[in-house]
């Protein structure tokens, strides 16, 4: 670490004037111990390899930050982060003013050089970069052509074609900024991938894959010194062990609780449960190449047969909701008002099946064993709904995703969830169900008009036209040629010792910076 006079002074000064936030322990212990189900699915800490919302999103923004941030304590709208302002120079160029005086974890000042390295050779492309990482980066920034610094504190992103989603992409996973100098000092991409150096409120102290992630306070943090001296994430796979550890005082926070666990814990006077909706929808996806699902009427009938609200009420204790289709309110102007998922209407479903000529053919439904919260219970409820309208659906519980997605054997319906990684339909409907999305590349579903609309939408800069396109896409994917059924929005719950003035975010992120504490 380069310890500059500025770093030393700021660290010393701010650490004496730390905000007094009680963590619920009388001995003044300023270490936050958090039990999570998973720290990293890929055993790495780099956002271009570690892509899981339910694992790395918990801590990633504590270490690495984006140029454009999200308001984690409101509606996830874009806010200045490492860039203080941004503007369009022309249809292909986005110019950003970088925040000055930001001290990185290695003691250097953040400049445009770090942005160049974050999107440059050795980081996202080049012979030393794993091929899948380059492919992931291309998926995140498909139109990015080059970066052009305009000075120490300014940079331009130049795209190969107009891309109105660039600001959103820069605020999402994959757009995090790393220290150029620290990155170049390490020999390999793999070595960097387990030792990220960024600008966040906490710096990496130790990472033991599958065991713990230790973060130390970065007192020179640009948005105020973090209130905790240290945050330790412990990987505790079993929910019962996380809860027991919380109650025993081994952890101050326990994450990844199911709704019933959250309800039970909320009765404990020493514990406070927070959480709520996150930008992720539980869906079932169709394989329309499999008869009888080649008939869109059968798929729509399956949607009309399901009462999502009953699932929300019975399995989520009303703490989730049936969302307005595959969209989220933080889309802002792109949100389609008054759009609804197909209503629960068993008589209509029966009529549709009759007109489709459905004759009791078996439909395979592949699910995993509670990869998603209450997944098996949800599957059982769905089976019963479908049985009631005369559908013959057979549930297959699979051990892994490869078994769910395999093309061997008949495919019909499968469990899935879709996230919105940034505030535009391109991040969800286009990314997941468009021509390059997993559902189409896996050969489950395709629609020529949808694919044409996806191409147009990615290139269009006209918001009115884009909203019309998005409405039409919803019409295709949820009514005319159903690609999926939206069941409910997902919610996450975090329990912590009562008395800690911490606020949860409308996402998977656990914000332990000053912003995350109410006093």
């Amino acid at each position: 670490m380069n310890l500059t006079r500025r770093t030393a002074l700021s660290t010393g000064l701010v650490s004496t004037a730390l905000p007094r936030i009680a963590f619920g322990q009388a001995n003044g212990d300023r270490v936050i111990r958090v039990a999570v189900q998973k720290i990293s699915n890929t055993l790495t800490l780099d956002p271009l390899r570690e892509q899981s919302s339910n694992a790395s999103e918990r801590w990633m923004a504590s270490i690495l930050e984006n140029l454009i941030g999200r308001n984690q304590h409101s509606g996830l709208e874009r806010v200045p982060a490492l860039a203080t302002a941004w503007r369009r120079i022309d249809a292909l160029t986005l110019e950003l003013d970088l925040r000055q005086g930001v001290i990185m974890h290695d003691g250097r000042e953040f400049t445009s050089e770090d942005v160049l390295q974050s999107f440059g050779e050795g980081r996202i492309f080049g012979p030393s970069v794993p091929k899948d990482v380059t492919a992931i980066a291309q998926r995140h920034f498909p139109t990015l052509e080059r970066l052009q610094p305009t000075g120490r504190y300014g940079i331009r992103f130049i795209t190969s074609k107009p891309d109105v989603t660039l600001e959103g992409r820069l605020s999402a996973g994959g757009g995090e900024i790393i220290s150029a100098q620290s990155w170049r000092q390490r020999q390999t991409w793999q070595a960097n991938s387990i030792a990220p150096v960024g600008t966040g409120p906490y710096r990496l102290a130790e990472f033991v894959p599958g065991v713990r992630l230790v973060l130390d306070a970065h007192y020179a943090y640009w948005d105020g010194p973090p209130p905790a001296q240290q945050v330790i994430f412990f990987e505790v796979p079993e929910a019962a062990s996380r809860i027991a550890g919380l109650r025993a005082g081994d952890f101050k926070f326990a994450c990844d609780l199911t709704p019933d666990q959250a309800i039970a814990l909320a009765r404990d006077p020493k514990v406070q449960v927070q959480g709520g909706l996150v930008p992720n929808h539980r869906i079932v996806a169709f394989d329309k190449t499999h008869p009888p699902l080649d008939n869109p009427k059968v798929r729509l009938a399956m949607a009309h047969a399901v009462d999502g609200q009953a699932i929300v009420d019975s399995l989520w204790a009303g703490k989730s909701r049936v969302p307005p289709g595959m969209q989220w309110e933080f889309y802002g102007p792109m949100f389609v008002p008054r759009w609804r998922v197909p209503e629960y209407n068993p008589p209509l479903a029966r009529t549709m099946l009759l007109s489709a000529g459905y004759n009791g053919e078996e439909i395979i439904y592949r699910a995993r064993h509670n990869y998603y919260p209450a997944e098996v219970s949800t599957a059982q409820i769905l089976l019963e709904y479908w049985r009631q309208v005369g559908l013959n659906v057979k549930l297959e519980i699979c051990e892994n995703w490869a078994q769910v997605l395999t093309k061997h054997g008949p495919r019909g319906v499968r469990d899935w969830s879709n996230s919105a990684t940034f505030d535009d339909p391109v991040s969800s409907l286009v990314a997941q169900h468009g021509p390059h999305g997993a559902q189409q590349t896996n050969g489950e579903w395709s629609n020529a008009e949808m694919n044409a609309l996806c191409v147009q939408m990615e290139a269009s800069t006209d918001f009115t036209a884009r909203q019309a396109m998005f409405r039409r896409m919803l019409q295709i994917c949820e009514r005319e040629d159903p690609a999926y059924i939206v069941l409910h929005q997902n919610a996450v719950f975090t329990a912590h010792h009562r008395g800690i003035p911490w606020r949860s975010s409308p996402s998977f992120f656990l914000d332990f910076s000053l912003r995350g504490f109410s006093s």
Partner: protein
Amino acid sequence: MMRFIAWRLIRAILTVLAVALFVAVALRISGDPAVIALGPDATAPVLQAFREQHGLNRPIPMQILVQFQAMLHGDFGASMMDGTQALPLVLHHVMPTLEIALPALLLKLALGIPAGILAAVRRNSWIDRLVMAGAVLGLALPNFVIGVALVLVFAVKLGWLPSSGHPNFAGLLLPVISLGLAGAGVMARFTRSAIIGVLTQPHVRAAAAKGLSRYKVMLRHVLPNAVATLLPVIGLAIGGLLAGTVVVETLFSWPGLGSLLVVAVANRDLPVVECILILSAATMAVSNLVMDVAHAWRDPRIVRGRH
């Protein structure tokens, strides 16, 4: 004797090779490792890039051939997740596993053998029934149930011990007791059977008839003969040291080989899974080999019977 040992050694090596082959085939045919590692959102180009990076685009027999060739040179490959060499990664996790597995083994032996002897000596008494009821309970209750109960009592209610994964003496206790109690039941039952088997032998009656005390009969005539029956059971317990802690490690978030195995299997991190399972199989094979040799040394009829 040397021929006996050589033959057993060849059998042990073949066993390990068979396990390696089985694991290599089973892991590859139970699902595309690229899809498992990258999840349901991964697009075709990303999956293809991952397969190329890790040689998964080759036919399965070719993948296995290349892997075996490398393994014979001591190269188990690198983790597909973070690029770490599999063998050092796995060896790094062996010590934490042994930290709980060895004390648990001692606990099994220290509890199970005396309890079995006591039950056999007091056969059909209330002591025998009590010990055997405890042994059956230990056998019937899975170690994670014992673990959860211990956590509830000693961590949540009493607050005496940490609930999980602490690398200190207090943190060792609950995982060790969870593992040890279940195994002690098995050991007690086998010990009781072995002792009763020897107690009914004519030479034991003869020893008692010539006026030896019960203590001396047990020490000189019963226990040495019962050990021969117990050796294979102890061998299995030692062989299972590395592979037998998976559930308890997961429950207590213990950073050992079992936890690593669960993560690696879930991610289909082939080099790591294969390395762990080959190491576990080798431990079991070596343990059995040692016990076979010990058994043969103790009872030379075994060698003569075979050869």
